């Protein structure tokens, strides 16, 4: 669309200093112009913002209103109290606190491991030349087309078989779930990191090598510190993704004590959506806040990363 810059529109309109007879006429004209140029954008902005934000305000309002039912939550922000939050933490059959911790632990461990495994692979692809390198990179690109959840049946059966051999890694085990998630650790992540690793000049590692550093030392002391931004982005993206993962977690984790927020909160509303509504809303707010905070913090990197990745193909 137009990036046509109208000097009159750009010039700050307010604070008319110095009287001039033509001011009213000029204003009138400039309002029409202003609207054509900018005003409609504000209309679009306000409408979209309302569409984007009202569901969120609705949850927040329902969470703060201990009236509790869904019908009672329709008048936004009519009551403020923490009753729902108290109810949320006092139900032993639905241990919200445990779910929260489980989600954090599984998310943090998995994303840390994902970053580490991805960085190892990206280092190899970026700094070493070996037969099968191109094929491996291409295979990763193809493999990541097929999300793990497509094989959820086979994952369930595999873990079921593992339960017979190593019970603490099988069905119902969070460690088992983490292991399954790590199956997706390479793929997109490696690609993102590989691109970033390539931007670190090779002369740096060569200099270190001449000084007698080993390849491990180069990796840990030269490369990793220089690529921390991408490590953080990949790790946080992985964490955000994992905190929403439902399919595999619902199949693997059966005991309410070991479940994650996604599985637990689903069970909260699955049976009786309207009665527990306020308590569910409170849970939803608490579950969403950390993820949203992380996301907004990361937002700039994410867009840059996405577009950079797309341009490189």
């Amino acid at each position, binding site marked *: *669309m*137009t*990036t046509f810059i109208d000097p009159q529109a750009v010039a700050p309109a307010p604070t008319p200093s110095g009287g001039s007879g033509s001011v009213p006429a000029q204003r009138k004209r400039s309002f029409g112009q202003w609207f054509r140029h*900018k005003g409609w*954008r*504000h209309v679009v*902005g306000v409408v*979209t913002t309302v*569409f*984007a*934000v009202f*569901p*969120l305000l*609705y949850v927040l309002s329902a969470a703060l209103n201990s009236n509790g039912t*869904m*019908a009672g*939550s*329709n008048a936004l922000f009519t009551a403020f109290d923490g009753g729902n939050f108290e109810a949320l933490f006092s139900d032993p059959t639905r241990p919200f606190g445990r779910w929260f911790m489980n989600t954090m632990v599984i998310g943090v461990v998995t994303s840390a491991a994902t970053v580490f495994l991805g960085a190892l*692979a990206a280092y*190899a692809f970026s700094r070493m*030349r070996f037969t099968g*390198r191109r094929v491996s990179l291409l295979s990763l690109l193809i*493999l990541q087309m*097929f*999300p*793990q959840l*497509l*094989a*959820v*049946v*086979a994952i*369930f059966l*595999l873990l079921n078989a593992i339960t017979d051999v*190593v019970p603490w890694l099988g069905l119902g085990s969070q460690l088992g779930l983490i292991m*399954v998630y*790590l*199956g*997706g650790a*390479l*793929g997109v992540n*490696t690609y993102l990191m590989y691109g970033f690793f390539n931007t670190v000049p090779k002369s740096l590692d060569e200099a270190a*090598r001449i000084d007698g550093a*080993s390849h*491990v*030392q180069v*990796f840990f002391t030269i490369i990793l510190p220089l690529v921390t931004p991408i490590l953080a982005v990949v790790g946080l993206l992985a964490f955000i993704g994992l905190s*929403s993962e*439902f399919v595999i977690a619902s199949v693997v984790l059966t005991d309410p004590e070991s479940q994650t927020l996604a599985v637990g909160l*689903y069970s909260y509303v699955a049976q009786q*959506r*309207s009665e527990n509504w306020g308590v*569910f809303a409170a849970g*939803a707010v608490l579950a*969403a806040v950390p993820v*949203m905070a992380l996301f907004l913090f990361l*937002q700039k990197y994410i*867009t*840059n990363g996405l*577009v950079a990745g*797309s341009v490189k193909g």
Partner: protein
Amino acid sequence: MPTLAPPGPAATRPPKKTALRADSTLGLLVKIVLLGLVDAFAVYVMITLFLQEKWLVLVFAAVVTVLINWVYLRRGGLPAKYLAPGIFFLVIFQVFVMIYSGYVAFTNYGDGHNSTKADAVNAIQLSAQQRVPDSPAYRVTILERDGVFHLLATEPDGTVSVGTTGEPLEEAEDAVTDGTGKGTELEGYRALQFGEVLANQADILAITVPFSDDPEDGSLKTGDGSNAYVYRPSLSYDEDTSTFTDLETGATYSDRGEGSFQSEDGEQLSTGWKINVGLDNFTKAFSDQNIRGPLLQVVLWTFTFAIVSVLSTFALGLFLANAFNLPDLRGKRIYRILMILPYAFPAFLAGLVWSGLLNPEFGFVNNTFFGGADIPWLTDPVLAKVSVLVVNLWLGFPYMFLVCTGALQSLPEEVNEAARMDGASAWRTFTAIKLPLLLVSVAPLLIASFAFNFNNFNVIYMLTDGGPRFDNTTANIGHTDILITMVYEIAFGTGVGRDYGLASALSIIIFIIVAVISAISFRQTKALEDING
């Protein structure tokens, strides 16, 4: 890259070797400890596998262990050392499970077909138990050890024995008996109080203590926690002919190669075993009246959902990106942050929250926007589809907005100016210049977005759970189900029995569709790039 490759290895190899030798002792130590831990775990797994006589898996585990050790202990082969950990998980939990899905798709694996034939025979004998008429009562005490309940049974002749499900009755000579000779306590076990017996009724009723390893000998079961009776299988198994005979009716059930025992008139025993069924699952998907109709509708809706989702989010995102692509627009940052919020909100929660908003009776949308009207947003087939699309638009447009903003800003300004010089209108500049340039960088993301929405499980499952249900099928599948939610429903749903075979067959169909789409679209993207570039 390729031009740099030849001198690369030659130049770096010599210092690499010296570097290896110069590895610090700390590094060596860490390596030995880590490898040692891995090996210890591997040996533990292999011993368990050996005891369970799972030879094929044992061989596989041994090969993997040797491979890992070879990778890390040999000199050179540096890339493998860095790639091995990631690839290990990738191979097992991404590649192997895909192959395994392929295998399961050709079996009848599922409820009632879980294991081998021998297990099925055993299970049938255990489940088809009937009380032996006029058999004596055994007085029992319920014992507990490590959370498992046992029966301490006093036979009519006074012998006291102990056992539980899977553990044949064994004489317990040192059991403590009361005045009447009934065994009441046994060392190493804890006798349950009456209240506990009541509390654990279901578990205690389920205890089936066999007399020996041969199920034909019968077993002890209790109905009240104080007396147990002898039960014998009502079906007798003949190993030579591989048939079951009902001891009462005399009907015979034989193995007809379909993974279960069937009588002459087609009646099946409920427990069967896993066999290969060839393409049966695929033919079932496309010919069984109960599956075919719904499946076709689901496939059609999956494509519609994915395509409309991509187009709608992209259109809105692009429009907004254009609207806000003005350097001096006031409040741009605030709009931007507020509009991104839905994307930051976890998707599974979005589905659940919107399901409340759209609730016909109590929902916010009906009560506030439509003045209490009873609009069936989630229960009418057409409206449910519209709702799913709107919710997915809500979730997806911020991403497209971000992407399009980024792409627009990276377009060179000169192009724009040149067009203006030539007198092109704003609209023409957009369609003829900006959009094609934009598509080059955004097309891969659109394809990725399509692939993602094709399997967008969370939105559908959380919002409508696939509903409203189809009328023409007994399976729990509905008008807004996409392929992946249908797979989940068939494999883990509560409606009909779990059918892993059919579910895997459907996942294989998704695999194929995704593969074809990615292949085509990658070619298209390349073509697009060639045209422009």
